[in-house]
């Protein structure tokens, strides 16, 4: 019997290893897997490569992992945000590497990673700093950059509701990067508000099919 529901959040993140690439869902506070962030902080893995829209802010989530020196490199679109001092300090001290990527390119690279697409050409970033070191090529008169897929060893995501097969639905703009990160990681761990019986989710409205999800943890079980 398939049962992807794990008993504790600490068990859910237990095998995240030093140096792993971890995709972190969430955008602007919505759809952030806060309990998974906290568990990863307790767990201790370090020198992680983090992939996320921003670098987190304030005194929770990704910002704390960064502040504690647990992230060796960030791939993100917003390395500079209000409240993001934790990252700035680490960066300016030379303790964290940074790959800045436009948000749409970041999303597409993650989707490509989850879809078996090795690389793609996009017009975004031509003529900017983002073009440095990247192949430039014209298609139908439009100059484009070659961008490569991003894959994760783990994805830590947040959803509203799951069943034991790992099917997921989200809450409003809490969807954001979560469904594509689920596709792009070897092990996707979903933090959810609610778990329902198999068959309660309408097949037509499932956003992330369970094939993309390896573990489900209900919030409040920590």
């Amino acid at each position, binding site marked *: 019997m398939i049962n992807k529901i794990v008993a504790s959040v600490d068990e859910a993140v237990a095998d995240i290893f030093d140096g792993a690439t971890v995709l972190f869902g969430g955008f602007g*506070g919505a759809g952030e897997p806060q309990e998974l962030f906290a568990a990863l902080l307790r767990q201790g893995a370090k020198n992680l490569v983090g992939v996320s829209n921003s670098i987190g802010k304030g005194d929770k989530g990704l910002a704390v992992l960064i502040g504690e020196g647990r992230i060796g490199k960030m791939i993100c679109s917003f390395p500079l945000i209000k409240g993001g001092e934790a990252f700035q300090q680490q960066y300016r001290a030379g303790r964290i590497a940074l790959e800045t990527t*436009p948000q749409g390119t970041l*999303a597409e690279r993650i989707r490509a990673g989850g879809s078996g697409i090795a690389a793609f050409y996009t017009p975004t970033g031509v003529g900017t700093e983002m073009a440095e070191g990247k192949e430039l090529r014209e298609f139908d008169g439009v100059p484009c950059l070659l961008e490569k897929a991003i894959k994760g060893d783990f994805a830590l995501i947040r959803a509203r509701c799951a069943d034991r097969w790992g099917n997921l639905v989200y809450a409003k*703009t809490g*969807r954001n990067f*979560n*469904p594509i990160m689920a596709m792009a990681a070897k092990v996707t761990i979903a933090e959810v508000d609610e778990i329902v019986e198999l068959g309660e989710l309408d097949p037509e409205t499932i956003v992330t099919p369970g094939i993309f999800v390896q573990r489900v943890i209900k919030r409040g079980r920590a």
Partner: protein
Amino acid sequence: MIPTPLTKEQLARRVALDLRDGQYVNLGFGIPTEVSNYVPPGREVVFHIENGALGLGPAPAPGQEDPELVNAGEQPVTLLPGASLFHHADSFAMTRGHHVDIAVLGAMQVSERGDLANWKVKGADLGGIGGAMDIALGVKRLFVAMLHTTNRGEYKIVKQLDYPVTGLACVKRIFTDMAVIDVTPDGLLLREVAPGFSVEAVQQVTEPRLTVAPDIQTIRWTL
């Protein structure tokens, strides 16, 4: 008449007048965000946010905010009937794929060719790109809404960018507190000036030479 620059609200109102019934529109941070408050009555404009929704409504009443429903600036928003939700890759398919009709972005600099700089301060080590590069190149028409000069009076409309580029030759129309200017193949075309402003006064705070539209008008921000 004393030259009177538009207030930020008036500027947002002026931009809103250029949004047509049925258009899909993405708004950047700052002044652009305000534009959604002033769509003329009778026009149905569908606002897109890159973090995954179409059909944004007015700001929620105090106490009605939902932390799981925010715009790209992390402000709480609401959804109108007809709204839809989607993930980030689909959201940027809408912008990169030329489905969004208009984006209104803020700017640090715009060049006479329509090059845009808005993501990183000159000489800074860090900048927040976000979705600006994807949106700038991908939408059908890109508007810029900004103050005409920096608060130290420096040009923001320049011959050549010296701030880091967001996108080349992408801006179609510039709305400022002093003027409305089109970017054309023949250079910048001054179409409207703020009340009391002469063409010369606008030219003085604009580095590239402005061509003056034969039908130049005073900016109006109401119908």
